[in-house]
């Protein structure tokens, strides 16, 4: 969700709406260019929408909330709908705060999925190409207006959890993250303007289209 105040424009991952002014590259894009676009100093925040499908559920679970970076070393995932939950990742620890329950704090090592999230996000946000390239092989494609960056894990341990992470963006804005786990279905996180556009969507197909095509339509 986007902050209403003009001063606090959403900044996480360079998810700025005002991206039309970005000078378009004549030809294709490369990973370095994308990271430079996305790099944003803390604090920053952006809304997200995730749709989680499962055979156990009557319909896909739609989760809405906000990613925040209060400082360079901390990542907060705050879910607002359909339940309240705040996950804070900092200093190698995870704290999960669910309404009505005492927060659970445990080592990041115990949930490698969260460690991966922080490792890739952290590098993305600080524009640290070298660090990102340590963990992933990067492959950029598309144009400045409509780019994709595919992250393929290098380390075997990571590859056993994640097959690939695809970032979709426009100019300075990261709009969607598609994570293909080693087992199970593709998971999508819509961010920034894409999340806003998805406010009323509940169909998985529509969400997928929004993710990949962006706001180009």
């Amino acid at each position, binding site marked *: 969700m986007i902050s209403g105040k003009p001063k606090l424009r959403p900044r996480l991952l360079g998810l700025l709406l005002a991206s039309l002014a970005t000078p378009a590259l004549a030809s294709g894009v490369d990973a370095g260019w994308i990271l430079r676009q996305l790099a944003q100093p803390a604090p920053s925040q952006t809304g997200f929408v995730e749709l989680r499908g*499962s055979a*156990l559920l009557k319909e896909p679970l739609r*989760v809405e909330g906000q990613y925040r970076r209060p400082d360079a070393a901390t990542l907060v995932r705050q*879910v607002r709908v359909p*339940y309240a*939950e705040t996950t804070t990742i900092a200093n190698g620890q995870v704290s999960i705060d669910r309404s009505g329950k005492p927060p659970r704090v445990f080592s990041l090592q115990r949930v490698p*999925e*969260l460690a991966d999230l922080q490792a890739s996000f952290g590098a993305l946000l600080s524009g640290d190409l070298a660090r990102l390239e340590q963990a992933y092989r990067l492959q950029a494609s598309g144009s400045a207006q409509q780019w994709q960056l595919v992250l393929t894990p290098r380390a075997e341990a990571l590859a056993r959890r994640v097959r690939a992470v695809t970032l979709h963006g426009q100019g300075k804005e990261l709009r969607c993250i598609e994570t293909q786990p080693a087992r199970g279905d593709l998971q999508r996180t819509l961010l920034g303007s894409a999340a806003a556009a998805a406010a009323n969507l509940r169909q998985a197909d529509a969400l997928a289209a929004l993710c990949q095509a962006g706001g180009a339509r």
Partner: protein
Amino acid sequence: MKLTAPQRIGLAIGWLLLLGLLTAWISSRMQVSGDLRKFMPDARTPAQKLLLDELGEGPGARLLLVALSGASPAQLAAQSRELRATLAADTQFELVANGEQAGLEAFPEHLLPYRYLIHALPADAFSRATLGDELQARLQDLGSPAGGLIEPLLPSDPTLQLLRVAEALQPATAPQRIDEVWFDHTGTQALLLVQTRAAGFDPGAQQAAVDAIQAAFTHAAGNSGSRIELSGPGAFSVKIGNRTAREASTIGTLDTIGMVLLLWLAYRSWKMPILGFLPLASAGLAGLAAVALGFDGVHGITIAFGFTLIGVVQDYPIHFFSHERPGRSSWDNVRALWPTLGTGVIATCIAYLTFLFSGVEGLKQLSVFTITALATAALATRFVLPALVDPATRDFADSRPLARVWAYTRHLPQPRWSLLALALLAGAVVSWAPGPFWQNDLGRLTPVDPQDLQRDAQLRSELGAPDVRYVIALRGNDVQAALEASERLRPALDALVDRGALESYDMAARYLPSAATQQQRQRQLPDAATLRTALAEAVADTPFRSDAFAPFLADVARARAAPALQPQDLQGTPLATAVGGLLVQGQQHSTALVSLSGLHDIAALAAAARAQGGELLDLKNASESLVADYRGRVLAALAVAVLLLSATVWAALRTPRRVVRVLLPMALSTLLVLAVLRGLGVELNLFHLIGLILAAGLGLDYGLFFEHAGDSHADQLRTLHGLLVCSVMTLLVFSLLGLSSIPVLRAIGSTVALGVVCNFVLALLVSRHPLQEQADDRA
């Protein structure tokens, strides 16, 4: 029987070939065992029993701690995974852990329903409200970044009971994980725990295990530059064993060179070192063959002690060589020596017979080995060696220096009262020297570098590995009784952990509760209809499908009706090793063990164990008391041996005066050596004792030969020559051993070297035949 030179060489070669064949036969048949239990007397106390019968292969003693360092964490983690995969496929390892198996895989599919019986459940675990809360939490789990991890578990386990069990089964102080494998707290060393099947004190098997780990590591490490470090009792015994072997082989080489030079110098013939070696080699091989025929396996200690004790046979050919002279047939020569030599051999053999009745397997082997070896060497010297020697070209009786030495010794006074004073003084030193008389700590004989010990303690605490010395044992008439006893102990142990008296503990009941506890938990599980209703109501309020959790209903129903999980049900699962190491099932009874980590208050633990009918066992203490028992048997056998030996000498010599002259130097030397060792503050151990026995055997021969030196001046000179060569050679061999840095070798070497000097001097002063000499003087 007189052979030509080529025939003699042929016969010698034939003998060597025979020895070669015997060696081949023995090495194909004999199994050297390092199992200390074979060498120990029967256990008497429960702790000894546990140490020998059951815990002889205790879990703590079979653990090897492995640390990989010197490369990036990612590389080390990959190497740790490869090492684990390789070693887990190797049957000599019972358990290989590096943190990878987080507990979920430890649970085989068909045992999954038992998760409701293994771990305690709150009373309202299956109420509508609890289920509703759990389902809401699962929905949030599903919506989290870790949703993919949780999803497959949910249909059968919406309350995540399996994770609770897995968490409970994790070691309390598990090391941190990097890339899913254990690392130390600095994150620079990957850690693994390896448990061998073989006992920690079986050096051969531990060597094989260490080699396998090294080989697997070399393969995994490639050229990453990483290093491996091994710690734990097995790794230490291998390290020390190799060091001892290296040093013993260096000393052995020096000894051989020295002996060859000495024999060449003494006899000026290159054949003598070879011929002199034949009886000893034959003796050792015959002894081994006899043990291989009579026993299942030869103990390593039997071989070590045995070869020390038969050092005396090296003297037999020397006496023979020294008495050779031109113009006299070798056969006549050996026949003349035989009464003296034979008396010594027979007396010694009869003495060693007592070990046969000691009731200790290892000592029986030692007895068979030494008796066979001594007899073989004596018979070889008597019946084969004369055929092999070249005709003598010189007579040692013609040696002027020797004659001067002998003349000088004749002017020495024959001590009487001074010996009594010496004996009293030595007796006083032996009795009143400060410090303990015996050293029972076998560990002190094979000392581990303090640095290694410190490293071991460090790794042990990083890994939360159990203490090697202390363990709690709870006995019951059967497995269930033992499990129940250990369950009753848990509250007290938990309290001790809270108080800081103990860091953590482990017991079989943690993985496998007693049947009674399982049945009690079964009674708490709801019946199918109740659970179905409660679940349906809870699911109705959530986005979950109404039929999503059918497998859960089935699992609870199965858990409710299942027969209690027994130890044998765990066979083939990783849990079996955890339970097997801590639950010892015997014929008459079972013992549940509680392994302990980070002990701070031993008295409190002992009290807690006693309160539940258990016992805190001090395995170090148990092994020390076993050593003391063992030594007691040796000493008792020796007491009988001294009587038998005296009786044999008496029967051979017939007059009390002669018997005293032969036996007095030997007895006095033993006392003197003891006094010197005690005076120097040395704590005596089994190896000193074996050294003393050898020294006494040598002393008996010295006494017999001096006493029996011969009827003529020339014969006496030849005897003196032989005895000088014998004692100088023995002194050389054992002095070098006495200089070793390894306490075991030093103990044997210093004792025998001292014994040789005392025995030679005293035998010279006491045993030589003054009447005969006076007759010679008159002649």
